[in-house]
């Protein structure tokens, strides 16, 4: 069973194409395993076994009659529960929305199901993608499959847990200040925040209109590129979406990194914050391996992380408060305490601060992108700490601001979290690789070369192993 659970999306898709793997058998095997391990993980808000089996049967029938649709055909996936799937509740992990049945699919849901993907269910999130981990909501928070007493990272927490635990080979999350890359980092998987505009947000409940991104979480870099290719592209329903489809090019992915110039932002994890020593050494080890593969690493300087973080938070909280104001006025008791407290911060931000934050955003984005005159990609930390105890609210609050992901929500550059080893206690470590706008291909190329050499992707949590 663990062979099917940890089959990569690329391998599963190829086996299905060759009719060596039945989508029905694959889906059924994952569903049975998921039911067994879900009580330990709480990765899902809702599993959709009947729909999944129906989609798997349809995929099997289509492929049998020669109507193969591509690498997602017959392959299970999951959606963060802020993403609409017609006929299924989009709860945002909140009492406010628990009876909200989606009337239509989100753009990304349509793209995945039209590609033949099999929706397995909706995954846990922080409440409205900001308030968590919380224990005062209608559903419990997701737990980390590497150690269920630990936090998954968030806010795409269930998507991270489900992919890491082999419940699905791929899931979607959203990322406004790091919410795809954080669970990817802490669950030992790959998470991409694509370029702003690369993926439509239509049908996804917003946290912050100008910072929200949708991206895939997978166990391998190649799988991530396949997922991004499936969901990328323009959409009239999202005015920020760009006319920039993305193609998963296997040859480009495997081109290697000889001669590649890798910029390194050390100030984020050595000066602006002191990263946990295991995190810092994981990054340095990854850079050494990239050098051994032929890349040249060069230190680069950018503005302090605290400047990026403050600008991100001013914009995020202002926009989130605008979205939630009416409910905060009318139903404040229906929010979890953490979500209500975090979003309420937006009530105290002055219009002048919001306007200046948007101006500063442009300036910071320009300053950061200057570095790409000299380098092909940039590497820095993702999380500053390994996964913390999920019930240690105080440590969690401190850790919330200790991350290097928010800068790239501001700048809009593509940013990928990739596994970079484990602590002595067996908890995942990560690095972050950032590219030029709309150059996800270079990010994936560097990440793939590192991943294949380091081989961290071959290690899996022992959850579900008898």
């Amino acid at each position, binding site marked *: 069973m663990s062979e099917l659970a940890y089959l990569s999306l690329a391998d599963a898709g190829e086996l299905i194409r060759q009719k060596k793997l039945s989508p029905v058998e694959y889906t059924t095997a994952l569903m049975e395993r998921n039911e067994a391990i879900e009580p330990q993980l709480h990765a899902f808000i809702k599993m959709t076994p009947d729909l999944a089996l129906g989609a798997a049967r349809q995929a099997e029938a289509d492929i049998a009659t020669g109507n193969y649709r591509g690498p997602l055909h017959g392959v299970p996936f999951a959606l963060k529960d802020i993403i609409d799937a017609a006929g299924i509740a989009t709860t945002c992990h909140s009492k406010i929305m628990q009876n909200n049945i989606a009337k239509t699919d989100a753009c990304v849901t349509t793209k995945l199901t039209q590609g033949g993907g099999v929706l397995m269910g909706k995954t846990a999130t922080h409440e409205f993608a900001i308030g968590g981990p919380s224990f005062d909501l209608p559903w419990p928070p997701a737990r980390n499959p590497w150690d269920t007493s630990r936090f998954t990272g968030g806010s795409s927490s269930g998507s991270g847990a489900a992919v890491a635990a082999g419940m699905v080979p791929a899931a979607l999350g959203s990322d406004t200040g790091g919410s795809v890359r954080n669970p990817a980092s802490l669950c030992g998987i790959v998470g991409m925040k694509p370029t702003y505009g690369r993926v439509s947000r239509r049908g996804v409940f917003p946290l912050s209109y100008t910072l929200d991104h949708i991206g895939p979480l997978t166990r391998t870099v190649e799988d991530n590129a396949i997922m991004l290719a499936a969901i990328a592209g*323009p959409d009239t329903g999202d005015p920020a979406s760009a006319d920039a489809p993305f193609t998963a090019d296997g040859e480009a992915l495997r081109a290697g990194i000889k001669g590649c110039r890798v910029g390194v932002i050390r100030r984020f994890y050595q000066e602006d914050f002191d990263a946990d020593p295991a995190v810092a050494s994981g990054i340095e080890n990854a850079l050494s391996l990239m050098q051994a593969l032929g890349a040249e690493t060069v230190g680069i300087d950018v503005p302090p992380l605290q400047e990026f973080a403050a600008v991100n938070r001013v914009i995020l909280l202002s926009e989130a408060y605008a979205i939630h104001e009416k409910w905060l006025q*009318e139903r*404040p008791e229906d929010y979890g305490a953490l979500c*209500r407290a*975090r*979003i*309420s911060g937006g*009530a105290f931000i002055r219009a002048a601060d919001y306007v200046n934050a948007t101006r500063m955003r442009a300036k910071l984005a320009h300053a950061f992108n200057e570095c790409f005159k000299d380098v092909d990609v940039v590497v820095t930390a993702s999380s500053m700490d390994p996964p913390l105890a999920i019930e240690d609210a105080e440590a969690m609050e401190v850790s919330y601001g200790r991350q290097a992901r928010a800068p790239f929500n501001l700048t809009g550059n593509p940013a990928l979290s990739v596994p970079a080893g484990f602590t002595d206690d067996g908890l995942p470590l990560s690095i972050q690789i950032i590219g030029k706008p709309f150059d996800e291909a270079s990010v994936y190329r560097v990440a793939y070369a590192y991943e294949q050499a380091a081989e961290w992707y071959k290690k899996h949590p022992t959850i579900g192993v008898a």
Partner: protein
Amino acid sequence: MSSINDEAAALRDFATRIGLTKLSENHFGDLERAWQTAQTITRNMPRDLSPADEPAHIYLAGSRQVSG
């Protein structure tokens, strides 16, 4: 002591003015923490912008249409 009470009263007054009239006593504790967080965040904002730096919002008449 009186300044703390004044601050709490000002916070309640502000909450009322922005329509947050259904908050419980516990919620006011959360709101006070939210206010402190917002203060910290805005204090950390970089201030080195001149009036002509980076116009924030550029309005384009007519909507940009994308295909697809």
